[in-house]
């Protein structure tokens, strides 16, 4: 055995920490539809029993769009099977998970090209042309 991942873990029992989050997501979708107000749920702040995070991820499933971001480590931005519900996972340069979020929005802000990057990119293009 060379890593903790090889230790067999048997998940038993139901702790009931997933259902309240599903309810919270439904309320957030209502807000998005009624007032276009987005919601971010920081999964690091919630108590999960072993296996419950995986249960939540499996329940939400995978939708039509998945994006990979390479900035200060990798990030995965995936729309779940429920449109408007996005699963974001940020990793650091050592590939360790540093943040998991659910964004209930039309498009997560981090997917948009950012003003400062557009300005810097335009300057680089101008240098290349001259």
């Amino acid at each position, binding site marked *: 055995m060379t890593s*903790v991942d090889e230790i067999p873990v048997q998940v*038993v*029992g139901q*702790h*009931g*920490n997933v259902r309240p989050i599903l309810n919270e997501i439904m309320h957030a979708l209502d807000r998005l539809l009624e007032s276009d107000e987005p919601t*971010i*749920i*920081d999964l*690091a*702040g*919630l*108590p*999960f*029993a*072993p296996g*419950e995070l995986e249960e939540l991820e499996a329940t939400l499933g995978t939708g039509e769009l998945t994006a990979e*971001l390479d*900035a*200060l480590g990798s*990030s995965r931005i995936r729309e779940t099977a429920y449109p408007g519900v996005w699963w974001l996972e*940020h990793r*650091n*340069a*050592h590939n*360790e*998970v*540093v*943040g998991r*979020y659910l964004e209930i929005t039309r498009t997560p*802000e*981090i997917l948009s090209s*950012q*003003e*400062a*990057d557009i300005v810097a990119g335009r300057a680089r293009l101008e240098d290349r042309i001259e």
Partner: protein
Amino acid sequence: MKRTPTVGEILRAKGVSRRGFLKYCATTASLLALPPAMIPRIARAIENARRPSVIWLSFQECTGCTESLTRSASPTVEGLIFDAISLDYHHTLQAASGEQAEAARHAAMEENDGGYLVLVDGSIPTGNPGFSTIAGISNRDMLMDTVKGAAAVVAIGSCAAFGGIPGANPNPTGAVSVSELVKDKPVVNVPGCPPIAMVMTAVLTQFLTFGQLPELDKFGRPLAFFGKTIHDRCYRRPFYEQGKFAESFDDEGAKAGWCLYKLGCKGPTTYNACATVKWNSGTSFPIESGHPCLGCSEPGFWDKGGFYQPLSTGHFGSGAKLAGAAAAGVALGVAAAAAGRRRQAKITKEA
């Protein structure tokens, strides 16, 4: 004071994109236990924040706190050192030693007079000064000399915060906490044996981001992390409410992941963030691994009876604290308490 670059300038110089910066801010909000809606404000603050000088003093300690810090995943300790703070003195991590190290400490104090942070791990002996010295200087003299020009002091770990194991009965060195000696500077306590790495880095990040120290509880601990008990945030809490308890470490209840209250869990009277922030890059925390909480972030935890004695046997904390902890599920708590006393009596009898 020398002009130091802002964190925004440092990140841009490293070629970090705005998207990367937003990601950095999102994880910082999470680290500070702030709502995600605060991310734009955090971005503005970090853009203009300047790296504070940090002097880390180690006294009567076991280096466990530094071991914990170096396992911080967000931010990593190297990220924190190179991007967010200027760590100018730390016995274990610095390359310099002897006179060079002491010269670095004095240089940092002079260049950043009034603005640097002092981090302390370990308690301070007040008995014979020779009990613990560095470069021939007693711990007490080094602490009092170093904090003179500090903006604030952060006591890292239960030894620095409350005296810890060196201060436990019979306290042979006369060990005291930082706050028992430093009275004219703000002192933040980040207890734990060791403290969670992310809680340590969060206090530094909060100071860096907003130029102020976090809101504290009555023991000087940041409320964002020490505002709720382990029990409040424990994923096994539903079993406490249902009266489902493990009676031994190998019974069916333990295997089913039931509440560890009757095996001595101090979660109901212990304020810390282990249940949500967790350890080892968010892998787990003691209760998740099947072991009761020891209550290591509470004052005097070492002298509060056996780790495996249920709270209800009365060795840990006051009756008032216990009553508060058992506010929910009172009937079940009372039943568990009675069972715990019976079990304790049985253990005592057998012994």
